[in-house]
């Protein structure tokens, strides 16, 4: 059987692979990748030997920072992030949970002061047993990551 590439190789940029199927679109929105104006290739529900189905994102000419890669860990802890230069992988980010995350997610507590004021949201992040807990710096409420890390 003839093998065909479903996604074209990237000359320069970032490949985010092994994203759990369904999270690819969230990640595009989280990092506002479409707004970069760069050429982006997105694969959804591709078959994966390890994951069954996965999503993949390739962005040309954008190198994801360490900090962004760690924020990604909240959605897709097993994703791989490779920075490509001239068709070569020049950096493989190892995803680690960030200690804190600023300005991305709104606090789920509707009575939290952060909603109506000129401040960025801020959560400290902590792994606890099988869950990831996020604590709002302002209202001090602790939430499970699935409640906070939602792209609205």
């Amino acid at each position: 059987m003839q093998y065909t590439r479903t996604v074209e190789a990237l000359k320069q940029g970032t490949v985010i692979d092994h994203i759990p199927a369904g999270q690819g679109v969230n990640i595009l929105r989280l990092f506002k990748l479409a707004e970069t104006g760069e050429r982006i290739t997105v694969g959804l529900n591709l078959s994966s030997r390890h994951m069954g189905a996965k999503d993949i994102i390739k962005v040309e000419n954008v190198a994801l920072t360490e900090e962004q890669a760690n924020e990604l860990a909240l959605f897709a802890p097993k994703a791989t992030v490779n920075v490509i230069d001239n068709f070569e992988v020049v950096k493989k980010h190892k995803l680690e949970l960030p200690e804190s995350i600023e300005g991305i997610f709104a606090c789920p507590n509707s009575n939290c002061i952060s909603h109506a004021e000129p401040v960025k949201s801020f959560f400290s992040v902590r792994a606890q047993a099988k869950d990831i807990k996020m604590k709002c710096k302002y209202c001090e409420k602790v939430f499970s990551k699935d409640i906070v890390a939602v792209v609205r």
Partner: protein
Amino acid sequence: MANPLYRKHIISIPDFSREELELVVETAGKLKRNPRNDLLQGKLVGSCFFEPSTRTRLSFETAVQRLGGDIIGFADGGNTSAKKGETLADSIKIISSYADAVVMRHPKEGAARLASEFSSVPVINGGDGSNQHPTQTLLDLFTIRETQGTLENLTIAFVGDLKYGRTVHSLTQALSLFGARFYFVAPEQLAMPDYICEELDEKGIEYTLVDSLDDVIPLVDIMYMTRVQRERFDEAEFKKIQGQFVLRADMLKSARTNMKVMHPLPRVDEITVDVDATPHAYYFEQAKNGVYARQALLSLVLNETV
């Protein structure tokens, strides 16, 4: 060397070290024994109550004036520019340019922390929504030390609404620094939140969930009562639990002689009036101690040494 609370914001109990809590408690004791009228001389404190409060506001204002300081402020956010849509950030920038410290209460959680980021002077949290009320915890700690002679290794029962009671949460966190042992006596619907129990588990601190008040009376040094609010239940449910978490004088026969009953007040019917006359009742003295604890805090925040 300046005391560790000098020019610090006072926002939340978990921000305090054990030594800082002890410093406030000791200073409150000194000021109760030897009142001072000079520690805030020449200082102006902004008292900003965006939400009405009686005890907290009056005891702060009493504390400032007894120490020789002056007060500016408001008792109700309805008459301020917050009503016109000004952000809290802007209000605090301006108020902090007038005063030497800002005491504030606000209906939204996190308000004091946010204010501290925009204030040029120390902010003292007098309650932010359902989140923190650190000066209540400080006066509770002072009262416990006053009645027991120590904060170490005490046994404390918290009774009533442990789910929504912010005073209970902060006091539990504070006492866990001193090796306390806890009994939590509450209806299932108002049980201590998981996050507090998890914190205690992580620190290896012993606590027991109990559903009968009688069982714990002989075991404890402090019985901390709180109000179970009728509006949290439907009528039938309330009838079922009503009475289960009420303390009466005749129940106190088995209590230790050193045992004191505390309550953040206002009480409704969870402590019957006949308890007031027993040597165990201490809630009114506790409310009075609010002035000393707040005096201690203001003095430490506004003076390098006290």
